[in-house]
């Protein structure tokens, strides 16, 4: 335990100061190192690696190196390519199969040109068995006439770069045409811009409702005595200690067709048939506001406590109507708290997943639910990553806007 004392052999009173000074720099840095290394390894690296999938195309390039090289000079107008390209593809697919990556190649090409999955998988299987070792072109065409389609080849050729904008464009409802220009996706399949706007809209509504509901509560907390105020804060904090999932589950139980709310209304004779309360936009708003409201209240209270009460009293004693006094005097003072609360609530809302997934219908799903869908259901990592980039950019923009807003408020109150 006292290893250092043994090493130095000096009286401890003399040793203490130089010791501290000596280790002030890198000794302390060494203490921080485990955390930094840990976060880089388990958080930043996985995150960055995942986001990179939005532009990564190496699964195709790495698995079909010969084909990509052979197709380098090929043009769409050349028609079905020649012997060398077929040979290269047969070799590549045979290799891919022996590495068990043919399924991924087939999936990626099928993502871009639907209906090619079997073609790739079956060709790979025969290629590994050596069916295309002599005269690959004729043999492949004989087994699988689909290789006569120029689109199949142009799809592979278009994907021969290491990076692709396919997923980023898709996440904005755009795609590349055969000519290489960018065009909007067909109306029936365009959804991401709508989902993006919906995500923002839901977050804005939740934020505004929270702000309006929270203001009088914050006033009340500051107005009452210290003990009552502490009790109020504790009561408001309590739901924060209950998990988001549990609070969402509670709303499902409350709002379902035969739940307490409908049951109560029916019991009182107000309604006959149960109302559609759950799986609606309203139920989503209710649940989200309940979950996020405490944060808004606490942010406003934190600032309100620091603002002097005399200004408001002075304005009132000068005969200003209450609301005018509040708006002109009190509001600017507590604005930083409101802004901070709005920022927190908005940022948390944008990333919501559990609550919309459980309590919303299909039209209430936000970006996060699509990220989960593409990961779980269709294993389209590229699109999931592109949507994640979209969401993260939204967060960064919100943060910038918030900083800007804070700067403006600060300048105005200084002026």
């Amino acid at each position: 335990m006292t290893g250092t004392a043994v090493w130095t052999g000096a009286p401890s009173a003399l040793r203490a100061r130089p010791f501290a000074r000596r280790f002030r720099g890198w000794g302390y840095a060494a203490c921080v190192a485990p955390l930094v290394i840990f976060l880089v390894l388990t958080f930043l690296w996985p995150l960055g690696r995942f986001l990179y999938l939005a532009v990564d195309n190496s699964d195709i390039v790495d698995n079909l190196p010969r084909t990509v090289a052979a197709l380098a000079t090929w043009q769409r107008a050349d028609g079905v390519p020649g012997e060398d390209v077929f040979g290269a593809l047969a070799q590549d697919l045979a290799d891919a199969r022996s590495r068990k990556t043919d399924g991924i190649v087939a999936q990626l090409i099928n993502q871009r040109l639907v209906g090619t999955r079997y073609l790739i998988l079956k060709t790979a299987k025969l290629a590994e068995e050596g069916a295309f070792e002599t005269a690959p072109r004729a043999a492949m065409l004989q087994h699988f006439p689909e290789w006569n389609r120029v689109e199949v080849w142009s799809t592979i050729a278009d994907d021969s770069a290491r990076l692709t904008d396919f997923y980023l464009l898709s996440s904005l409802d755009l795609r590349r045409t055969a000519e290489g220009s960018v065009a909007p996706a067909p109306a029936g399949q365009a959804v991401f811009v709508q989902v993006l706007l919906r995500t923002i809209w839901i977050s804005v509504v939740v934020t505004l409702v929270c702000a309006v509901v929270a203001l009088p509560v914050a006033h009340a907390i500051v107005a009452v005595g210290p003990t009552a105020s502490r009790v109020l804060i504790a009561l408001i904090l309590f739901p924060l200690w209950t998990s988001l999932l549990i609070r969402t589950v509670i709303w499902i139980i409350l709002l379902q067709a035969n739940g307490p709310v409908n049951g109560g209304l029916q019991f009182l004779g107000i309604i006959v048939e149960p109302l559609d309360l759950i799986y609606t936009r309203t139920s989503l708003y209710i649940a989200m506001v309940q979950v996020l409201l405490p944060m808004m209240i606490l942010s406003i209270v934190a600032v309100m406590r620091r603002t002097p009460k005399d200004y408001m009293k002075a304005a009132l004693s000068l005969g200003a109507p209450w609301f005018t006094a509040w708006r002109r005097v009190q509001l600017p003072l507590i604005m930083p708290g409101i802004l901070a609360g709005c920022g927190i609530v908005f940022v948390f809302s944008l990333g919501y997943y559990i609550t919309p997934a459980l309590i919303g219908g299909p039209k209430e799903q936000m970006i996060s639910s699509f990220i989960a869908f593409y990961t779980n259901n269709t294993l389209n990592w590229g699109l999931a990553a592109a949507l994640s980039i979209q969401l993260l950019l939204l967060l960064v923009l919100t943060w910038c806007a918030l900083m800007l807003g804070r700067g403006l408020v600060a300048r105005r109150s200084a002026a």
Partner: protein
Amino acid sequence: MRMRCALGAAMLMLAVPAVSVTWAEEGPITVVGWGGNWDKAYKEGVWDRYTEKTGTKIVIEEWAGEIAKVRAQVQSGNVVWDLVAAEAPSVEIGCAEGLFEPLPASVTGDPASYLPGTIHECGVASDTWATILAYNADRIKGEGPKSWADYWNVEKFPGKRGMLAQAQYTLENVMMADGVPPSEVYNELRKPGGVDRAFAKLDQIRPHVVWWNTSTQAMQNLASGEVVMTDQYNARVSNDIEKEGKNYVIVWEAGFFYGTDLWALVKGAPHREATLKLLTWFSEPQNQAGFSNLYAYGTGRKEAADFVAKEKLDQLPTAPHHIKHGASYDDAFWVENKESLEERFKAWLAQ
């Protein structure tokens, strides 16, 4: 300071191995089924009997058919599942990719002794099931819906409808509602504009649909009256009629599609030999019948029918008086189109 850090590092090292102990290697066969009553029927009708006979323990897990999970295990070399019940298109893909092991005839028995579609290079049928139209006769009194067109007819049969929130197994019903006979559905879907036609038909019913993701949800909605009719897997409905005395009607004559899930052996399975023994045992007709006797799904071996009670046989999708209204799911169609159609369906749902 150095001391403090060394102490911390030592504690770190103590903490990590404490949690990295894995419980895999030695252990019972892990079979992965579809959960709920399905797993229960397999456990009681099949697995427990095998354990009783041989002493081999069987652990049941559930999944939702995500072939990606098998791929992740095989590629990383960290296989924890032995046997999975996968839908036929997944077995097709997994077999082509080498995620599942081919099963020799010495394990499965003579392929000719199986019903069509219930034996595959890499799998042997776990269950043959159908997606049918069912309604709650407590809510629809008198004459009920007779066809998928009636399902769309909200004037004649007011009330919400339950519908599976995915493209696969749903688009087939939509095409039947649009007047396409079961045998023609995939031809129509493959035509240019065929899928558009299905989505246009879906637009019509949309305001009247309560979507479901799990069959339990759908059955709850049917029970509570939230919906008056729903699409559903046939055994789920039979089970509730029989065990809970529900007044539901399965409308086989509306037309239906049936499909087969197969037991597939994961490549590199930790208990490969034990699993092959289990499969050999399972291939005996009387052992397969243990499942059909508890749950209204068929199995592979033709002779298995000899060991299934008559009233159970009558509930199977493959019973002669049912199958004349049905057609088989087209695995090739879904192998190619599954992802793109699911993504389009999700987009349509969210619009």
